């Protein structure tokens, strides 16, 4: 079996492309190369559009950057807001934030994590998981979920709303927040704001627990599918916190191999470029990151919930830790690589986020008034956080006029580029090889990609919203059939 990255056949082939994978953000395309018997010879996830966000940032005063980068993406603006702030903390010499500033930022970040994971599971992925990958397409959406599981869908909306409230109260506004600034934050919480969030927390925790129970039950009901669908083995990478704990806001880079052995650990964010490089391939605008020491063939990895929950040594909140252990026990303590396990780990993270929000809300530092620090100004800074979809790197150079001269962003979805490609190749081999592609079979490819919750808007550095259409082409490249799912 070939890798399916590049066709090895001399036979005539036809090309099938799925433009704009639905239920992901941005502008992506899957192409399959099939021969006359329907055997798959090549499968690729492409990024077909790129707009240079880095250039948009260059030349701007550094203090504008944490606000400007939120315009990179309507899905995860808070992640960019905080990663940029962390990088620029370094620039302004803020080596240690005040407790209030760090905790307000953490609260904002965990609120974002909770609302992002809730949207993905309850509204974007649950239709596939509850109704089946090739169920009736008109049912396979959130309205179908609302009709069949009204409480589940409502809890998803309410979790989103709670996360948005956390963001509003910490960032100052629902969108285009200005709460985090280089060196700290510009507001803390009032007691009334804190109490408002605390009052809602018991329900949030309960819905989060029910979400984990549901995803666990789905796995147990169809273990064979959940453990084999889109399966590929890879290394994994994430930040870890003190003692190796699960950590979303700050930490050091750790990577494990596919068997779970730690390969690199303790890498400070400022040194990321010594350990991570990006390969360019002619057929995609999205780069392919890899660990320098292992090279592009062996050094690629996955990021995000499945990587984080297995890369850490423990979760410091009790409910999520119990669920992490249950996840490990369910898999005999072995490393899990099945893409559908992203959903289970994502829900463990959602529960952890809810617990951490509770911890933070009970901490009076949130209401402190020491908000900003500064120190010796330097010309360069790197900020890394664990965004909902995985590791997010922001790197800036700033000149003596306070203008940004260099900006480098490596977003979560780019880290997962090779992993998503491997997942669709696995699905293509298992489900499409030798079969005439139907909408249901095509959705299998999308299910595999969606498990990673990619944000192609971030990956392309654009706000792309395009229709999904499938084109079937013959060997000469002529379109012989098509179907459209309109979006915008």
């Amino acid at each position: 079996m070939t890798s399916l990255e590049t066709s090895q056949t001399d036979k005539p082939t036809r090309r099938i492309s799925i433009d704009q994978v639905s239920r992901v953000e941005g502008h992506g395309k899957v192409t399959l190369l099939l021969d006359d018997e329907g055997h798959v010879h090549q499968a690729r996830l492409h990024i077909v559009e790129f707009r240079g966000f880095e250039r948009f940032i260059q030349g701007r005063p550094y203090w504008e950057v944490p606000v400007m980068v939120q315009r990179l993406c309507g899905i995860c603006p808070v992640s960019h807001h905080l990663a940029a702030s962390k990088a620029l903390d370094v620039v302004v010499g803020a080596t240690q934030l005040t407790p209030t500033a760090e905790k307000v930022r953490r609260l904002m970040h965990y609120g974002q994590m909770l609302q992002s994971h809730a949207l993905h599971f309850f509204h974007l992925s649950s239709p596939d998981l509850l109704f089946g990958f090739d169920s009736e397409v008109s049912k396979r959406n959130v309205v179908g979920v609302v009709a069949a599981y009204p409480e589940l869908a409502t809890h998803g909306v309410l979790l989103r709303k709670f996360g948005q409230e956390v963001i509003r109260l910490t960032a100052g506004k629902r969108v285009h927040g200005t709460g985090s600034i280089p060196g700290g934050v510009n507001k803390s919480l009032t007691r009334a704001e804190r109490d408002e969030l605390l009052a809602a927390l018991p329900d949030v925790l309960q819905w989060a627990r029910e979400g984990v129970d549901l995803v666990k039950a789905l796995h147990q009901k169809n273990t064979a599918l959940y453990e084999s669908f889109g399966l590929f083995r890879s290394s994994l990478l994430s930040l870890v916190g003190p003692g190796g704990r699960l950590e979303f806001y700050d930490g050091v880079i750790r990577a494990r191999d596919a068997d779970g052995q730690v390969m690199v650990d303790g890498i400070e964010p400022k040194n990321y470029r010594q350990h991570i490089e990006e390969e360019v391939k002619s057929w995609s605008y999205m780069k392919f990151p890899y660990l320098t020491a292992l090279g592009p063939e062996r050094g690629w990895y996955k990021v995000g919930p499945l990587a984080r929950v297995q890369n850490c040594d423990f979760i410091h909140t009790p409910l999520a830790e119990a669920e992490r252990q249950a996840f490990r026990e369910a898999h005999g303590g072995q490393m899990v690589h099945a893409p559908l396990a992203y959903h289970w780990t994502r829900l463990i993270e959602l529960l952890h986020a809810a617990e951490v929000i509770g911890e933070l809300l009970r901490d009076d530092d949130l209401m402190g008034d020491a908000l900003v620090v500064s120190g010796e100004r330097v010309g360069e800074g790197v900020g890394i956080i664990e965004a909902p979809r995985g590791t997010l790197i922001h790197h800036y150079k700033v000149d003596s006029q306070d203008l940004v001269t260099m900006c480098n962003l490596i977003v979560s979805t780019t880290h997962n580029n090779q992993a998503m490609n491997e997942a669709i190749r696995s699905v293509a081999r298992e489900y499409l090889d030798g079969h005439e592609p139907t909408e249901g079979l095509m959705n299998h490819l999308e299910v595999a990609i969606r498990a990673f919750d990619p944000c192609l808007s971030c990956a392309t550095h654009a706000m792309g919203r395009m229709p999904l259409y499938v084109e079937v082409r013959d060997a000469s490249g002529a379109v012989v059939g098509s179907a459209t799912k309109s979006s915008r």
Partner: protein
Amino acid sequence: MTAPVLVFGYGNPSRGDDAVGPEFVRRLELSQADAIARGELEVLTDFQLQVEHALDLKGRERVYFVDATVEGGAAGFAVTPVEPSKDATFTTHVLSPQALLHTYQAVVRAPPPQAFVIAIRGERFELGESMSTAATAHLEAALTAFAALR
């Protein structure tokens, strides 16, 4: 106390004429400050519509969604009623106003408020561009029309 009228403008302020929705809201905050203070009108903005915005429609009598469009007639803007409907935007991170109303119906289990889309025509949407002269004129016209509606 929930204001009976909600104006929800959405778009990315850094992508040229996609800014018309948020800019419409910003202008209303100034011109309708008294009505907002009296609780007669509320304005909200976001990059795009998402499921939780269904809850922002609760308790409203009327909702106006303000968005940029590449279509439209000589007036440069159009105000059209919108009804709940299930469309393909349910499968993305972004909802249409119709889909949002449908979500409202499903989640709140009540008929949604009367809703209109104010679609303002733009012509350039690239990252980093400012609003075009044409879109700025269309925005002014739409604001004038909205003031007359109220």
